[in-house]
């Protein structure tokens, strides 16, 4: 499981939450958080993020 967010870049717009097919993401006061049990690493959130704040997968 590899889902990372750069909180300095994140603008808390919730775009990632909207495209998550498994409702694994939630927008909180402190930004977006992931439920690792639910995440299937499809990459939708990474693609749609307007500021490139999310990295999914083992690329790094």
């Amino acid at each position: 499981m590899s889902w990372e967010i750069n909180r300095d870049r994140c603008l808390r717009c919730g775009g990632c939450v909207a495209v998550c097919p498994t409702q694994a993401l939630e927008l909180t006061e402190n930004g977006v958080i992931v439920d690792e049990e639910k995440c299937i690493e499809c990459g939708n959130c990474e693609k749609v993020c307007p500021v490139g704040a999310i990295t999914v997968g083992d690329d790094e």
Partner: protein
Amino acid sequence: MKDVVVVGAGPAGCSVAKELAEEGYDVVVYEKRQEIGAPKRCGEGLSSSAVDNLGLDIPEYCRMQSMDGALVYSPNGDSVRIHSDETVGWILERKTFDKWIHSDETVGWILERKTFDKWMAERAAKAGAKVRAKAKVVDLLPENRGVVVEIEGERKKVESRMVIAAGGVESLIAKKTEVKDQSDLEVVDSGYQYEMVNLDLKDENKLELYFGDEVAPRGYVWVFPKGENKANVGIGIAGDLDETAKHYLDRFIENNERFSKASIVEVNSGMIPVGGLLENMVADNFMAVGDAANQVNPIHGGGIREGIKAGQIASEVASRALEKDDTTKEELEIYNHMWWEERGKSLRKVEKLREVLEDLDDEDLNYLAKKLDGQDLMDFTQGKRLSKLGKLLLKRPKMIKSARKLL
């Protein structure tokens, strides 16, 4: 027990809440953000025809600047020189274009969402609805008979006869019902915007729109003036690209000399559902309105008009259902029918128009320019009279297939 819980105090939620409160229903509106209307995720444009159609008497202080037309810049092609200040040629000769889109009258407004959304909330509150900011709805109660809301760290159950989801594009509440499952990246745009000051604007009363695969793939860059050399400078692009919306917008700004003295006073981002209109927007004791139901114009991404209109339609149906004490899915489905009749059918046509426009090249556009006028363009973006466009495209051999979509 409340009659209705509305989740989200944007234009859609406040529209439905106001109408229902006026009918005498006990309505509460929860907004998760600490300030209604902020941060915005919007270019803030609204057309005059929408204002008239919605019957809105928007106060002066919410209207930043009147618009009398738009300047539209060329898509890909030889005429595009994105690396110079003189940038971009017109899609057509300027003369033709001014004919297209200049009007002596006000055709729209750039609003201030911070004040506009609060004004909408104020109207709902004055009508009798209870509005609460910084109140996050975290769950639905069984059978959608209320919600669990979190205020100042404490969760409580609020029972109601029905729930209306107006929580925007990321509405978890809509996802929790059968109404919306997942978003397909083909029909979402990724949006990013700066509010900039000290700009060298081309015309204080015109929208600027920039098209082209290099500038904004499957979307456009907008400059929406807000008066006194201030503007929303934003971009909406396909949601499934390798590069980010921020990347494209930053490049556009860097390559335009006239932005060199401008300052950034606000940064916004968001996701725009530019397709994926929902056939069904209701469940037992449940309705969805606005971005939460993907109610956005697929060609320009505008959602204020659609949200408010849907709120008005939903309130009519909800009011009748509550009066009959029958808020089952079957009864609320009238909202589906009414919305599709009033807005959905035109928006579906606009969706087709978007598909066709993606296939046009500069030559096609120049050809069309000679045959069309400003009224045609305005009508097309509302999904009206598209057969005129279809018939013209039939005369372009390689466009015949696309043309048929419009006939």
